[in-house]
């Protein structure tokens, strides 16, 4: 067991994958010699050669398209989209092609590709380096959408994603690359070494997709979240004094609704938290499924805590970000009811 930050864990996952399977290749803008703008692929080209870890033209659509073609020819490409804000040019290839290929070809062809992309705010990246676009992809059947909240999960889930024969969108909350973040930008930065999720084996392992994790057991209410907001929610729960069960979805779609309903059945109260824009975000789907499956268990309206319905504003980053206060308010509202 070593202590790794999330970048190191992702790098280690890719290292294991490249080592085990000659069909794994890594491609993306600046991922080759340089090792990626967030250094996730640092050293991998040097170790495995130019043919296995290479730079691509700045054409997100072309990256995904060629990755699909490679996948059809037996490779397992890991494509990096430099920021998830730049995934839009690739949506046609993701939605019309990767997601639908197995279905439309009667199972003859499929796209075993993994798209890694840093998402979320908290680094003063403004509206084009801060987005959380997962809610666009969770509406598309055929896609698996993953977002880890710590290095250990990141490594295990990335390995599972690459080994999956379905296309996987793997969103990485960049704010927690270097350490957990509880939503308070004024506190000194923590690193992963003191967090259990920072203990990451050097060797190969994988974690199942489609399985949520209960990161804190509790009886009073259920907080459902993923990514950076797992840590923010934890901190808010501590402050609240309530005994909340916190569920880290890890895989958003296909959703592990059973873990959720089991918890809500027990608690009867629920807060859903994500950083993405509110309207039409994945929180609405979570809320809806709970409402449908657990209506009679509910003792209060489910609350959503989310980013506002605006682009991510540079100077108002911390007013936009759904921090502890907002989660806390929601918890109190749900408990007060």
């Amino acid at each position, binding site marked *: 067991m070593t202590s790794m930050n999330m970048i190191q864990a992702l790098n280690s996952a890719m290292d294991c994958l490249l080592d085990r399977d000659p069909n794994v290749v890594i491609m993306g803008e600046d991922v080759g010699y340089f090792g990626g703008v967030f250094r996730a692929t640092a050293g991998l080209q040097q170790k495995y050669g130019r043919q296995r870890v290479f730079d691509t033209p700045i054409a997100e659509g*072309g990256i995904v398209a*060629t990755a*699909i073609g490679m996948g059809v*020819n037996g490779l397992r490409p890991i494509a990096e989209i430099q920021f998830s804000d730049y995934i839009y040019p690739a949506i046609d290839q993701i939605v019309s092609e990767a997601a639908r290929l197995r279905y*439309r070809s009667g199972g003859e062809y*499929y796209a075993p590709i993994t798209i890694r992309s840093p998402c979320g705010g908290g680094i003063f990246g403004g509206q084009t380096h801060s987005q959380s676009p997962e809610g666009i992809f969770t509406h598309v059947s055929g896609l698996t959408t993953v977002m880890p909240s710590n290095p250990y999960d990141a490594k295990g889930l990335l390995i599972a994603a690459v080994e999956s024969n379905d296309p996987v969108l793997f969103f990485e909350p960049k704010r927690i690359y270097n350490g957990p973040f509880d939503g308070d930008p004024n506190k000194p930065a923590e690193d992963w070494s003191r967090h259990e999720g920072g203990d990451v084996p050097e060797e190969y392992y994988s974690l199942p997709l489609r399985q949520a994790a209960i990161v804190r057991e509790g009886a009073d209410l259920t907080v459902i979240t993923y990514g950076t907001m797992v840590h923010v929610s934890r901190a808010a729960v501590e402050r609240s004094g309530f005994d909340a069960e916190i569920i880290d979805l890890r895989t958003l779609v296909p959703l592990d609704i*059973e873990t959720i309903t089991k918890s809500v059945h027990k608690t009867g109260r629920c807060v859903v938290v994500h950083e993405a824009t509110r309207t039409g975000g994945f929180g609405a789907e979570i809320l809806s499924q709970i409402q449908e499956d657990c209506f009679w268990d509910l003792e209060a309206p489910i609350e959503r805590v989310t980013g506002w319905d605006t682009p991510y504003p540079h100077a108002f980053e911390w007013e936009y970000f759904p921090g502890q206060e907002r989660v806390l308010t929601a918890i109190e509202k749900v408990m007060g009811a």
Partner: protein
Amino acid sequence: MPRRNAPELFIPEPRLRPGDKPDFSNLDIPPVGVLDKPDEMVDFTEIPEHARSMIRVLDDDHKAKGAWDPHLDPETLRGGLRNMLKTRVYDERMHKMQRQGKMSFYMKCTGEEAVAVAQATALRPSDMLFATYRQQGLLITRGHSMLDMMCHCLSNSRDYCKGRQMPIFYTWREGNYFSISGSVGTQFSQAVGWAMAAAYKGQDDIACTWVGDGTTAEADFHYALTFAAVYRAPVILNVVNNQWAISSFQGIAGGISATFANRGRGYGLPGLRVDGNDFLAVYAATQWAADRARRGGGATLIEHYTYRADAHSTSDDPSKYRPRKEWEAWPLGDPIERLKNHLIVLGEWSEEQHEQLRKELEEEVAALFREAESYGTLHTGPRPDINLMFEDVYEEMPLNLRRQRQQVGV
């Protein structure tokens, strides 16, 4: 070429519209044999004329001429003729059956049979094909089961697309033929990825892909050319310039500013402009590009100059936007007639044999269609199992789909 002098938005417009008399006298069709055949590894800068002029082999007197004559043996030529004719007969039957309501939709490739058939003949069976909906000749030439093709179009109980796709969106993994997408252009860039993987793996196979003239405007065309140039991918990139994209003539895709073959040159890829109705020219250009790709020379862009003889699809009515019977005036003729006449001139074929072949094929295709129908049509008879609606969305069916399947009661 001075253009407009007053600022006014220029909107390209075809010369002729419904009511006008078909007339292609403005077309500049270069004579047969003007272009030399360079070594496959030539630098693209050295062959600008090959993208501007036209590679042609079959002359007006039906003889093969010039450096690009591939010198095919009569057996191969007759095979090509047979496959083109079979493609046309298949199209005719399917079109008719669509009109009778047996399937929801159909698309013919009439007048463009040489492109797919000659290319499939020139390539190896292990080369991977990423086609559009207008290259059914590839499947026929590679020997895909026509019964399977029909059953797919009928969305019946034997449809290998399991009822999920509209007609004509074939797939055939065993035949190295990629699943056709309903979104135009997407396969063009995917093919380049396939070819990159082939190079990565040290495979000797290449990829071959097609788009229409209209579809060259999509992003995937640009991605394909960019990635192919950067990584020197072993792929043949074909633009089938049949002059029309539904109702838009090729000028709306930029075809009057420069040839489509020329697009490749912009990226540093050789462009070959080929008489797309000349089986021998298409064969030769394909062979050249395939050899180049296999020798490590990277991609070639081939423009096939042809004409969409019929409607875009069964949903279209071209008399609304172009002169009737324009095809009859098309100066590059009918690819089937041209190869037939060549074989006749060679003494290797006759009108009688041709008629006989047509009849045979018509009977064969009609019989197959009857058999296909026995497995159901879109609205009658056996259907694909309804469970199939929920399968293959993922490799393993997730809970939401299992629940939804239950609701359908299966």
